[in-house]
């Protein structure tokens, strides 16, 4: 995108550049290494760190390029210093700087200097990174990567790097991360934006950032030359001044701890403290204001008018034949939606690309049988509409891409689109990229807070979570004969996400015997025979498994006593929560409902000596419950175990409770039945 102050017939010269770096924010000048930094043996805020940022300071400003007709460019400057404490951190001495390039705009690293400082016999030595050791990789069509390894790295080294990136790509002003995998003692980012540009700023994350704003009054002296017509070519020079305000945004944070990697977290992006910018509008003198994104309504309008989104849905329908085919099947509402989903999946295979915009016309994707998420799901919207449903595209951000912040309108935060149907007061979400999904059972990547419907509905924000649960129920019927040999049958009923997972797994294994192998790997305590799997095409989100078991491990027989654990099919083999504490929330994708019913028929020659005691525990506010019951009816024992987890987000201070809750379940399901010989 190019932006010039005045029409292109003028050439401009920018005088009196005042884009000095905001040195008042910079903790130290380049090359001015403090002895204490080199002497440091420990990160002051984390004794476990292998390396830390002494500081990381960034500046973004706008410069006016008088050559060509480039107009404003973004200049990003970053100055950082890293302390390497030990060998484990040597990879922090390898740097990659990705640079974007397209046909129209490009980014360029215009300067880069880097030094390694060491302490040798009490003296500071420095080694320069040579230009010849900076390598540029052509990573892919639009990306280049500058790569270099810092020279002379040792335990105790301090690395200092400063570079500038000059960019034509005004749409995305450089974001800034205040938190990384190693601690940062001081992080600071200053952005100076001329009044002509209006950026939406979104600050997210757990760790607090200080912010302040201010402004500068600036003067640009512009020169333009004009060629006068005549016998001799004469050039006339005009100069004039432009006064404008520069808005300054300054963010900083101190002593930011390292970001821990943890399981049960959808993406670190949701928790890392960072600041992002998105161009909302521009207004140059004597020109009308131009909007990019400003409000959600404008985003809606923009999408509705986009040739690769809304306008595609207004084109002539190429799905008439399919519509007729489906209508002729006389299905109920939800089965009809599922049939439409399956049909689109069969016709257009997803090429794995996430996008909210179509790659070509919907008709073309249909014809070539291939496309991105928008090609697939906007075709689905079109088909659902022609089947008579009220259907709209629902744009969202996938899990790894982080959640949407309703307070910060931004079109780039969305990277995916699915279909939504509003029918008889109910909301249905559909995604035809995945054959194992169905109405309201969308792929895991879509389970991410809220999405926005692009269509004529009163409530634009649609919840993406909690439509379906992970439901797994099983019934085990076990008969022990007088010689304690086992004859048992297990039936498992899987629905919603548990069926979804099992089906996805089945698809990967070519032979049914592989499924048995996997089942056996999961439950090593018995031998499986006769596995039968039944799925139905009409009820897409359910399946049933049954198998026989002929032995139980650990059916200990000690003289006249027998001990065994009745929980043959426990949900938790072990507690997944092992660490003492948790810094960030535990996130689940969906609620869990797990039921196990065990019935044991005992031989006449044994009597029951001990049975596990019933138990009932609940997490506060209905977040979860576990109910374990045992009953004795004549020579039969029946045991039921029910686990419910209804909350998708457990905060760090709820971790201990969640961990204990699961541990109680694990322990309970290990308890034993004791039988005593009657002889």
């Amino acid at each position, binding site marked *: 995108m190019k932006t010039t102050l005045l029409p292109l017939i003028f050439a401009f010269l920018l005088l009196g550049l005042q884009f000095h770096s905001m040195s008042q924010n910079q903790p130290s000048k380049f090359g001015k290494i403090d002895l204490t930094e080199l002497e440091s043996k420990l990160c002051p805020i984390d*004794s*476990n760190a*292998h390396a830390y940022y002494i500081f990381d300071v960034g500046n973004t400003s706008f410069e006016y390029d008088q050559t060509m007709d480039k107009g404003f460019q973004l200049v990003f400057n970053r100055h950082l210093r890293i302390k390497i404490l030990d*060998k*484990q951190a*040597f990879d922090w*001495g*390898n740097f990659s700087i990705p640079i974007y390039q397209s046909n129209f705009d490009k980014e360029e690293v215009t300067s880069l200097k880097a030094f390694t400082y060491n302490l040798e016999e009490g003296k500071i030595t420095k080694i320069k990174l040579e230009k010849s*050791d900076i390598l540029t*990789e052509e*990573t*892919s*069509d639009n990306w280049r990567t500058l*790569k270099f*390894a810092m*020279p*002379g*790295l*040792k*335990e105790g080294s301090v690395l200092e790097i400063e570079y500038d990136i000059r960019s034509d790509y005004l749409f995305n002003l450089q974001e800034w991360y205040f938190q990384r995998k190693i601690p940062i003692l001081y992080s600071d980012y200053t952005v100076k934006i001329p009044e002509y540009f209006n950026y939406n700023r979104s600050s997210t994350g757990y760790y607090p950032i200080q912010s302040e704003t201010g402004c500068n009054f600036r003067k640009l002296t512009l020169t333009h030359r004009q060629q006068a017509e005549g016998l001799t070519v004469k050039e006339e020079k005009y100069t004039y001044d432009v006064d404008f305000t520069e808005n300054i945004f300054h963010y900083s944070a101190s002593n930011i701890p390292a970001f821990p990697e943890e399981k049960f977290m959808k993406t670190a992006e949701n928790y890392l403290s960072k600041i992002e910018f998105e161009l909302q509008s521009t207004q140059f003198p004597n020109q009308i204001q131009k909007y990019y994104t400003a409000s959600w309504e404008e985003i809606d309008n923009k999408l509705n008018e986009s040739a690769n989104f809304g306008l595609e849905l207004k084109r002539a329908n190429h799905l008439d034949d399919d519509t007729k085919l489906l209508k002729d099947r006389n299905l109920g509402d939800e089965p009809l939606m599922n049939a439409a989903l399956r049909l689109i999946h*069969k016709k*257009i*295979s*997803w*090429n794995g690309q996430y996008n909210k915009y179509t790659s070509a016309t919907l008709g073309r994707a249909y014809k*070539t*049988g*291939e496309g991105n998420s928008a090609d697939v799901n906007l075709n689905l919207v079109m088909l659902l509409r022609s089947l008579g449903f009220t259907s709209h595209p629902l744009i969202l951000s996938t899990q790894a891409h982080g959640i949407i912040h309703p307070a910060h309108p931004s079109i780039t935060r969305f990277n995916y689109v699915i279909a939504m149907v509003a029918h008889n007061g109910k909301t249905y979400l559909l995604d035809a990229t995945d054959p194992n999904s169905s109405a309201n059972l969308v792929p895991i990547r879509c389970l991410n807070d809220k999405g926005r419907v692009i269509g004529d509905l009163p409530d634009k924000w649609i919840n993406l979570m909690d439509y379906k649960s992970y439901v797994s129920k099983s019934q085990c019927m076990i008969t022990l004969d007088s010689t304690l040999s086992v004859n048992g049958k297990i039936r498992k009923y899987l629905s919603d996400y548990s069926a979804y997972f099992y089906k996805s797994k089945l*698809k*990967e*294994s*070519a032979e049914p*015997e592989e499924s048995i*192998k996997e089942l*056996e*790997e999961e439950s*090593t*305590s018995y031998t499986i025979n006769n596995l039968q799997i039944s799925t139905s095409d009409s009820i897409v989100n359910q399946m049933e498994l049954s198998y026989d078991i002929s032995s139980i*491990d*650990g059916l*200990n027989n*000690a*003289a006249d*006593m027998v*001990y065994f*654990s009745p929980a043959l099919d426990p949900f938790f083999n072990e*507690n997944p929560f*092992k*660490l003492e504490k948790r810094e960030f929330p535990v996130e689940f994708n969906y609620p869990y409902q797990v039921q196990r019913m065990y019935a044991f028929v005992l031989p006449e020659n044994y009597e029951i*000596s*001990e*049975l596990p*005691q019933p138990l009932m525990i609940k997490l506060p506010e209905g977040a979860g419950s576990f109910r374990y019951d045992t009953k004795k009816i004549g020579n039969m024992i029946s045991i039921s175990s029910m686990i419910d987890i209804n909350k998708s987000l457990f905060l760090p201070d709820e971790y201990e409770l969640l961990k204990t809750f699961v*541990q109680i379940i*694990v*322990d309970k399901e*290990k*308890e*034993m039945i*004791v039988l005593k010989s009657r002889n």
Partner: protein
Amino acid sequence: MKRKFLQLLIGLLASIPGIAQRNFDYSLVPDSLKKDANAVVRSYSTIYNRLSVEEYTLTVNYVATILNEKGSSAAELLINYDNNSEVADLQGAIYDEKGIYVKSIKKKNFNDYAFNNSFTLYSDNRVKQYSPSATSYPYTVAYTYSIEYKSTVGFPIWFPQMGFGVSAEEAELVINTPEILGLNHMPLNYPFRFEETTSGTSKHFKWTATALKAITYEPGLPDHLDIFPSVLLSPNDIAYEGTTGNFTSWEDYGKWVYSLIDKRDGLPAETLAEIKLLTGPIADAKEKAEALYKYMQQKTRYVNIALGIGGFQPMAATEVHQKGYGDCKALSNYMKALLNGIGIEAYYTEIGSGAYRKIKFPEFPSVNQTNHVILCMPNGKDTIWLECTNQNLPFGYIGANNSDRYSLLVTPNGGKLARTPTYETRKNTRNSNIQVSLFGNGSARIEFTADFRNYLYEDVFYLIGQSKEEQKKELLKTLSRGDLQIDGFSLTDVSGDDAKATLQLNGQMNSYAVTGGNRIFVEPNLMFRHAFAGNQMKNRKQNLYEAVGYAYNDTLNLTIPLNTSIEFLPNDNEFSSPYGSYKITYQKLGDTQIRVSRQITIHKGNFPPEEFGTINAFLTGVLRQDKEKIVLLVGKT
């Protein structure tokens, strides 16, 4: 309309030579090739035309029918190239189940990106890549392309099947070469039909294979070169990036490598003075070498930057010294320079590292059997081997990945094959001693010491340089279940002649034993999981390969709670199979203590499917026996 379609079809077929002639209807695939297959290679032709000692072209025609999602790797095209090579005439097409043309894959559909593995910072390796997205199975994909090479160092091993679960109808490999350049070749695992002809000054080699059955993946398989039909190739004369060589013997191959390292081991005078000062007071050569090895470890780190000849030629020792980094070649050469600097002889040594890359055929010299460089210091009879790419590795320990195999010592007189040391089963050990004081509620205090030697030292090696908190997290994740709380621990590297580390730990387990009524059930928890398979390997079709043998010796002393008595103690047990042996004893020590001792040995070897009856019985036996419970009765009897 119909006519237009036909023309299009003809146009496309004509542009993919060798593909059009055949009908790729899936129904024509014989059942024997559908068995265990996720994809069937219908036709595959690889043709090398060697133009001169430097230049050659490679032309590939490939057609495969993809039967299901798992066969998608056979549908993906990945062409590696670099500054020495250029990809030309790249195109492809998709056909449906009946072999009817669906669409073409054009040059612009192929992705092109830099291709570096995780340990490489920068290289000039690039890849052209395409993978079709399927709507239904089966379907057929066809590719054709050629690559022009400006330099020749070797030809990759040719495999007619693209991995596991892929069968092949017909495949051919053709090499046309000027006779004077010569070619060394060796077929493996299949009786290829082979033709060798001469016309004028050219030689023509051709291998063909038909009806190759799919091979199923199983864990723990031996090397691919023991399983898959393949042809090893190596040109006699090479010319690569301005260098020339002759690869007819390892000796000559070594001469070429020597020419690349020669005169790259100089060091600045002040460095030589520094290391002389450092090693001066030490008398023994081995101890001098150890001091220099630690010096090298302090001074350097592993960074892989591979450009052109830099894939074969190390950075000069001075440069490593100055920058403080390098890859395996550079760091080994630097270490060699340090040793030479104090008058100790050492050889730059090429090796294949890992279970699947090694100099497997000592009689077949070629460039692609090695992928790593270490250092060999003859030191009289006490040969010392040094792996130079890790800053924490103990002196003289090269790891299981480099052990027990041929290596090529690069001497001024050429290459010499030598075997690297073998880490024997009895020296790859974990010995542990665990003290458990059990309480009536099933919780227990535990205290243990374990040492890990050689191959099993590698299990904990990655933890050694980590911080206390990271170590603790990792221990909590990997040590046996039971709601463990760690109160204190230490992990210490105590390497000497063997690589060795010691772990000491004390803590509490809230769920050590299961209580119920007036009984306590104790499954003796030996804290560590087994490295070998935990389940049976049914219907095994191929050998199981264990490159290294090892042994666990664990002892647990259980102090039972006050006011309890032992109701049941499992029987001692001992059993073995060719794969391993297991022995456990349960011993009463007075009224309040039980000692459980367990020895497990897993043997190195290549175990054929016939032995799986006994191997499975062994694995099941281990599983069952480890779950045996001690039963305690509350209240004195």
